[in-house]
């Protein structure tokens, strides 16, 4: 039998760079030295062991085999589709909590945008959430920064991009982590309130991400109930944000309309599911989940505005 028994222990100590010191032990049977080394590297990369305090054992049937985590989750690296969705799901299990460093990054982006547009009070609203929720504060912005540490997004779309804060968070996160910018960015909005415009989004994106990335953005102006079904790209999305109309029928229509566009391993993010005023879309999400339990991996947070993720299996 070929396997690798892997253990990581957070010693609770901090090294000179401020990082936690993790002690690893491993032993394999039926594996060559190179295989053992490769399997260990794979596990470290895929399961982000160092970020999990405590002790975790993994039995791995060799590189390219199946890894069984001691909490019952299974990782099969030979199935690319399952790997990405499961990798994301497993990774995010441990990221659905407040992280002060990530929080700083999120607010850093928002403060940069605020400097460009002092009239936008979104930062103040966001600060209010942080003050009320403290070290429990979590938003999908935080998740974007966490995801970008491990994953790239080649095709992304948003319904309800407003001033472009969300796409700026994503691009900033990718840039900070040295990842490639998305090949396509499709932004849907009605742009009819007199305050937001494609030009404003472009200015914000260039300010945050630079490099002319805004040239790659395609804007789809109008009612998303019409524009999204009319949108027939020859690519599938690895990130879809649904944050358009908060009328429940409209929100459900948006979810249903983006579903054919999501790639295997892609993520549908649905914002504002908490019971807070102007949010309260959880019933829509519940309805969307019905009959799709096995089609996606599901993650939810009810902190602050609340958000939900469906990771396409």
């Amino acid at each position: 039998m070929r396997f690798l028994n892997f253990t990581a222990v957070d010693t609770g100590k901090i090294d000179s760079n401020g990082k936690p010191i993790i002690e690893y032990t491993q032993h394999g049977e039926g594996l060559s030295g190179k295989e053992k080394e490769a399997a260990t590297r794979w596990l470290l990369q895929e399961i982000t062991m160092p970020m999990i305090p405590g002790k975790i054992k993994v039995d791995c049937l060799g590189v390219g085999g199946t890894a069984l985590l001691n909490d019952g989750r299974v990782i099969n690296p030979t199935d690319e589709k399952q790997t990405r969705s499961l990798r994301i799901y497993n990774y995010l299990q441990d990221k659905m909590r407040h992280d002060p460093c990530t929080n700083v990054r999120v607010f850093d982006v928002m403060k940069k945008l605020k400097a460009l547009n002092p009239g936008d009070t979104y930062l103040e609203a966001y600060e209010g959430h942080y003050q009320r929720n403290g070290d429990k504060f979590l938003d999908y912005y935080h998740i974007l920064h966490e995801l970008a540490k491990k994953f790239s997004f080649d095709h992304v779309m948003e319904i309800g991009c407003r001033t472009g804060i969300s796409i700026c968070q994503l691009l900033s996160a990718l840039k900070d982590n040295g990842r490639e910018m998305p090949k396509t960015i499709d932004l849907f909005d009605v742009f009819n309130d007199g305050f937001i415009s494609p030009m404003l989004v472009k200015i914000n994106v260039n300010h945050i991400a630079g490099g002319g990335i805004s040239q790659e953005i395609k804007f789809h102006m109008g009612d998303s109930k019409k524009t999204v079904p009319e949108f027939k790209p020859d690519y599938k999305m690895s990130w879809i944000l649904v944050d358009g109309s908060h009328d429940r029928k409209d929100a459900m229509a948006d979810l249903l309309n983006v579903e054919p566009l999501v790639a295997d391993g892609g993520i549908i993010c649905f914002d504002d599911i908490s019971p807070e005023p102007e949010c309260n879309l959880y019933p829509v999400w519940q309805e969307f989940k019905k009959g799709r339990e096995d089609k996606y991996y599901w993650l939810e947070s009810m902190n602050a505005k609340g958000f939900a993720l469906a990771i396409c299996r």
Partner: protein
Amino acid sequence: MQKLILSNPLSPGDILISTSAFRDLHLAYPGQYLTDFRVPSGCEQIFENNPYITKIDDNDPEARHIRLDYSEIHRSGVSGRAFAEAHTMDLAKNLGIEIPITKLSPDIFLSETEKNWPNPVMLEHGYTGEYWLINSGIKSDYTLKRWHRHQLVVDELQGKIQFVQIGQLEHDHPPLKNVIDMRGKTTLRQLFRLSYHAQGAISAVSLQMVIMMALEKPCVVIAGAREGCRWQIYPKHRFLYTNGCVPCAPHDGCWKSKLKDCVNLLDYGKVPLCMELIKARHVVDAIMSYYQGGVCAF
């Protein structure tokens, strides 16, 4: 507390200028009146953020309905009164009280977001520099207000001043060259924001002139001799009028509206004499005087 529903069915410029009546009433009699308005659809935007407005139901039995008028216009050629006073005077007469005039400008209340948000030129075109607005068109019911030398002004000031052309597409606003085109791209509130961020404006006697009055910003008004000059003149504006220069408006304005009614047309019936007398250099000089005087800066 008396409830008043004040109505004004006229154009946006007339409605905007009538906001001075709301203000003056409340300043003279604080806490004694509740006021609401009834105006044509779309013009409600004029009253956004206005602290003198309270929602009053049409069927409220305690509400008194008054149509705001400005009958003083009929004496304006000899009284020297300003349009900004007229609604207040009319309201005072209706209520049987005295309402002191507090200032010669109407009210636009912009929210902090409206003031601090990027201006509509930036949102539409990405342009971030200083600019002047230019309203060179006319409404079909006032063809006598057209002036014919806007392009010359733009050309003369090219490289010094960036002009942003405004105007509703359903009116007659032929495109100008070498300007940023914002025609048909603004709601009333957006036009207010556009004006707030502008250094100044060139306009006929129009809504744009009244907006610049409310915001107390420079405006070169190309008036000709259609209206009594003291009726429309506002201290911060350069009001280019030709009353007294033409026999058809020897003192008061001629008060005609259509080109076809003008008795002193030139250029094969296209240009009224009172407008012909206003040269491009007069407008350029008027604009430059704001810079020479220090109100505006390059």
